[in-house]
């Protein structure tokens, strides 16, 4: 097993090809929950877990059911089905098993189904023909990257609350411009690793 390659995959998907700043996925949630640090952290953790599990599930189903049956053209429908079913069941199980955890993270779970990253990861894994461990590494890296983006953004936006922003730019517009600047900074990571 080539562990170096897996590590490279994690780093590159977290930093170089960061989903938020270079591929622009998951922006709705990125701007939606980055107002407070606490929610940003909660979202990142939930997101990372859902992402890894759904990538693993999708890989198994893609490899052992869809390819043998020649059903790959249905991948959009099937992947979104897997994610939605998994999120729904995680929601139900969590409510029953650990109400304390559900109270903390349940809100974010409901939001996750409409996040583009969650469907982009299995599609990307299938497109690149990753094996099982590579798929998980990619999901892990993307999850870490998304968490990193959320935490950076939240820490800036908390400071922004007290800043004097021109009225038309208050709220979302200024957040977009900040995201643009962070994205410019992330461009600096390109070339760090060449896969």
């Amino acid at each position, binding site marked *: 097993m080539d562990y170096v390659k897996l590590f490279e995959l994690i780093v590159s998907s977290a930093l170089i090809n960061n989903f938020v700043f270079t591929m622009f996925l998951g922006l709705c949630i990125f701007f939606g929950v980055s107002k407070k640090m606490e929610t940003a952290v909660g979202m990142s953790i939930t997101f990372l877990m859902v992402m890894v599990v759904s990538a693993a599930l999708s890989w198994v189903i893609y490899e052992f059911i869809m390819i043998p049956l020649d059903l790959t053209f249905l991948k*959009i429908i099937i992947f979104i*089905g897997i994610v939605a079913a998994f999120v729904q069941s995680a929601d139900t199980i969590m409510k029953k098993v650990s109400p304390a955890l559900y109270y903390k993270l349940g809100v974010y779970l409901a939001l996750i189904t409409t996040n583009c990253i969650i469907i982009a990861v299995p599609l990307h894994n299938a497109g690149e023909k990753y094996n099982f461990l590579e798929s998980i590494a990619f999901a892990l890296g993307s999850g870490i990257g998304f968490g990193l983006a959320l935490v950076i953004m939240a820490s800036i936006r908390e400071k922004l609350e007290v800043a004097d922003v021109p009225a038309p730019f208050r709220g979302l517009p200024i957040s977009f411009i900040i995201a643009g600047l962070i994205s410019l900074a992330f461009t600096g990571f390109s070339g760090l690793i060449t896969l």
Partner: protein
Amino acid sequence: MSLHKKSSWELIKNGMFGENTIFRMAISLCPSIAVTNGMKNGVALGISVMFVQTMVNFTVSLLRNFIHPKIRIPIFMLIIAGYVTIIDLLMATYARPIYKEIGLYIQIIVAFASIFARAEVFANKNKVWPSVCDGFGMGVGFLMAMVVISFFRELLGRGELFGYSLISGNPLLIMVLPAGGFLAVGLLMGFFNWVDMKFYGGKGASGV
């Protein structure tokens, strides 16, 4: 629900201006930046979304009395995914060069908050024709936003429109870079807020 009393034109207009997905509601933002580095890509995705949005609203509204409320979310997802697959396969066959660039984002339409939201909020409660108008209006609004953003980005970033060179000299390379997308959307949003506040006495400040 007073929405269904509006005329068809009012419904379409609402989607185009009043509740414009990108500049007003601030949802479905991902593609507004990802594919707007050129007019061609922006228009292609805009039209795809328009088609999916209209057809999903049509189908959901047609089936609204048969869908049990408890399982409506997975059903909506399936309907959306079905139409996205149609567009995906059509694009892959007939528009190969564009598909290579924006294929991933076409597939991502399935997770668009705006399409899902309209199905849930509007089509699920209204008759077929108003729903189609509403979906069409939302789609046109989305297309317009895509056109505006990609117009500025391609013109400033490459000095071109639809690939035809218009301005000579050094373009602002940053506008076609990922960072430029965020900046363009941020500035345009701020501009529309400013217009709204200055001339229409609105509160500005969209969503979130």
